[in-house]
């Protein structure tokens, strides 16, 4: 359980953030300058809020009312920085053990061997940080933070400095940590893709304030958060389970509350939970159920909300059973179809618009 209620003045920027979240992975989402990094710096004790309370589970790390302000070294916060920040004068193993050596044996719950195995670091132990690739550095940094036996892991844009193949690799490792170790993670990112793939609960920050807190599929489909989540990336997240694989056509069917989705083959077992992200611009609309078209996914939907700003684009929130989709169409189509609130429509989603990056395992 994470309880945050802090205020801080940073030059002209005023941070006033309050939220509580409990989840294996809490996503702290917002554009650059929204206050994400300020919040986790405050949690880690790197910066001091002017006022407020920071509590992780039962441990009060900061409380201005009681004049509690633990120094960073006793907070037991595992911090993974954007650029790894490995100690250049130590080899990988010394880096890994730096924090572990400073914790009393009573506080230890993760062993070195476990971390080395989990993050695939066995072949790197004797190397110096300079001889590591970006992805390897980040894995060592994660291992080092874990071995400091933290109550919670804070990750500040850990993929920002990596290329796409490395990003995918680290994402896989982070999912392994979530599944195998019982450590809550606060994952900071401005990337919708990363947040929707990893986070269970999302905290949306904008301009130093907390705009929304909630389950990722609920928050990411909200039209009113568009200015904070970014126009281009607008979309929705569906919580699905693998229903069937079609070996011949190499397609996978996902079932969710509201229907089924056909996507390119996924490497997941039947019944496994999968989070599918559908971008608003990949969803088309039709008044009648179309026939003789290439699009495999045709879902009956109800218009739940219309974001009718001026400009060429209209975003529609669509209810599909108990789930939500977002569709982005032109104002011209919107007017030609005469779409109104509550109307029944068909949403068309191309199966090929899904890729590995838009589907995550939960």
């Amino acid at each position: 359980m994470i309880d945050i209620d802090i205020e801080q003045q940073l030059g002209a920027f005023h941070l006033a953030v309050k939220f509580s979240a409990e989840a294996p992975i809490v996503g702290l989402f917002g554009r650059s300058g929204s206050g994400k990094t300020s919040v986790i710096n405050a949690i880690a004790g790197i910066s001091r809020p002017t006022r407020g309370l920071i509590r992780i589970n039962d441990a009060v790390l900061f409380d201005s009312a009681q004049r509690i302000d633990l120094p960073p070294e006793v907070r037991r916060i595992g911090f993974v920085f954007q650029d790894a920040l490995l100690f250049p004068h130590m080899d990988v193993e010394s880096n890994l053990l730096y924090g572990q050596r400073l914790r009393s044996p009573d506080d230890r719950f993760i062993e070195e061997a476990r971390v080395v195995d989990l993050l695939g670091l066995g072949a790197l132990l004797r190397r110096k940080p300079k001889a590591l690739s970006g992805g390897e550095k980040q894995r060592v940094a994660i291992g080092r933070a874990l071995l400091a036996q933290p109550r919670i892991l804070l990750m500040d844009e850990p993929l920002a400095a990596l290329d796409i193949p490395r990003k995918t690799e680290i994402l896989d490792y982070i999912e392994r940590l979530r599944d195998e170790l019982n450590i809550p993670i606060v994952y900071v990112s401005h990337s919708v893709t990363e947040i929707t793939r990893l986070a269970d609960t999302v905290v949306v920050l904008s301009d130093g304030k907390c705009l929304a807190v909630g389950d990722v599929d609920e928050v990411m489909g909200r039209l009113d958060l568009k200015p904070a989540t970014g126009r281009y990336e607008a979309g929705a997240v569906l919580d699905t389970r693998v229903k069937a694989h079609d070996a011949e056509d190499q397609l996978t069917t996902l079932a969710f509350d509201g229907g089924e989705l056909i996507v390119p083959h996924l490497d997941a077992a039947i019944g496994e939970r999968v989070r599918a992200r559908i971008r608003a611009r990949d969803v088309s609309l039709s008044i009648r159920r179309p026939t003789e078209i290439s699009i495999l996914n045709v879902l009956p939907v109800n218009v739940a909300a219309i974001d009718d700003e001026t400009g060429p684009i209209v975003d529609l929130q669509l209810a599909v059973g108990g789930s939500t989709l977002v569709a982005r169409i032109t104002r011209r189509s919107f007017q030609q179809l005469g779409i109104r609130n509550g109307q029944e429509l068909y949403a068309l989603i191309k199966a090929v618009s899904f890729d590995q990056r838009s589907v995550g395992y939960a």
Partner: protein
Amino acid sequence: MLGLSPDEVGILALSLRVAVVSVVCSLPLAILVAYGLARFSFPGKTLVDAIVHLPLVLPPVVVGFALLVLLGRRGPIGSLLDEWFGIVFAFRWTGAALASALMGFPLMVRAIRLSLESIDQRLEVAARTLGGSRLWVFASITLPLAVPGIITGTLLSFARGLGEFGATITFVSNIPGETQTLPLAIYTFTQVPGGDAQALRLSIIAVVLSIIALATSEWLTRRSSQSQGDDRH
């Protein structure tokens, strides 16, 4: 020894003792001052910086004279030190070491400060979040990463100490066996008829000493950068 006369060995030994003691004693203070100047802003920082650099710009004789006035047996500080601790600098080899330390201090502080300023301070933040106290982080991260600067600063100060002349002769005079270091001895020989050959021999010793010091520091720097995974060498 090595074809040196007992007198020459004595001069060499005294010079080395003066230089080594001055470096060893001033190093901790230099690291502290460099750290303070590199990491903190405090009122009077510019003044501290100026005072540290003063020996670099003042004529050495002036520094020596100031030492004589302040730390001489009847000087305000010198008399107290003598009275309370029995420490006397005036006309002793310890005074020569003090003069050397003072003259080399700005060089030492500058080199260490540069090295400290080039360290990514977020490494120290990372070490704090991993459980390191301020002091432990300084010892395990900051200091090892500043080693190249510490080596350079030590060498510069050591070389300055070996060559120190003006402040030494003004403060502790030119007493054979007590304060007569290499440069003072060379100067003395040039002042007596027929002393040129002796002056030349001592000058060659000074050159050899400097080359050894330079080579040692080069070797140490290379080793420390190798241990940081730097393969540019």
